[in-house]
């Protein structure tokens, strides 16, 4: 049972480059989320999705884009990478909104130089 899988685990980007962080879940969950975690800080919500074809902004969406074409996949796109986007990114999923647990991936550690 894979759960939530993120790729890559590590990546170094140069300023101005772009990349896509992949996230897939095999639990048939409707809700999916992208968070970033900076050292000594709490996780901040970037974008979320309540089902295929539906996405919405979280607390810190600037510089990112998402899509949700299938229930399983929720990729996060970084355009024109900036040093401020250096962080650890976590994808998560949950069955619904009503207080069920969230399942997290292992994270992607991104460094922008």
């Amino acid at each position, binding site marked *: 049972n894979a759960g*939530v899988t993120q790729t890559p685990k590590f990546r170094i980007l140069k300023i101005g480059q772009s990349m896509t962080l992949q996230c897939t879940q095999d639990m048939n969950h409707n*809700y999916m*989320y992208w*968070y970033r975690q900076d050292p*000594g*800080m*709490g*996780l*901040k*919500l970037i974008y*979320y999705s*309540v089902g295929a074809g539906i996405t*919405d902004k*979280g*607390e810190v969406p600037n510089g990112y884009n998402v899509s949700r074409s299938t229930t399983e996949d929720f990729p996060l796109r970084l355009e024109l990478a900036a040093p401020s986007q250096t962080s650890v990114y*976590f994808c*998560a999923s949950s069955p619904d*909104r009503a*207080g*069920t*647990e*969230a*399942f*997290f*991936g*292992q*994270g992607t550690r991104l460094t922008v130089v």
Partner: protein
Amino acid sequence: SQKIEQNSEALNIQEGKTATLTCNYTNYSPAYLQWYRQDPGRGPVFLLLIRENEKEKRKERLKVTFDTTLKQSLFHITASQPADSATYLCALGPSGGGADGLTFGKGTHLIIQP
């Protein structure tokens, strides 16, 4: 604006004692509150959920309380073990009509010393 406070400094507890972690929040009325454990280099792992109409929840050696008047949750680990050493995150669910997704505290780093 919403604010969540956890003991951000390390909490050192002797093995066998009860560890108590605190989560305080302001300007918020969450429908529920969750606790997660995070080990270095790993994603958070769900531990317990407590809803706004519940006072206490237990799971094995874990206990969570939720006081919506004080705007505080306490997380207890009884008979603590070195394997319980990790960072523990408090997370608040959306208030009625609020955006989806959890709002996390910075976490408390718990160290259980043998």
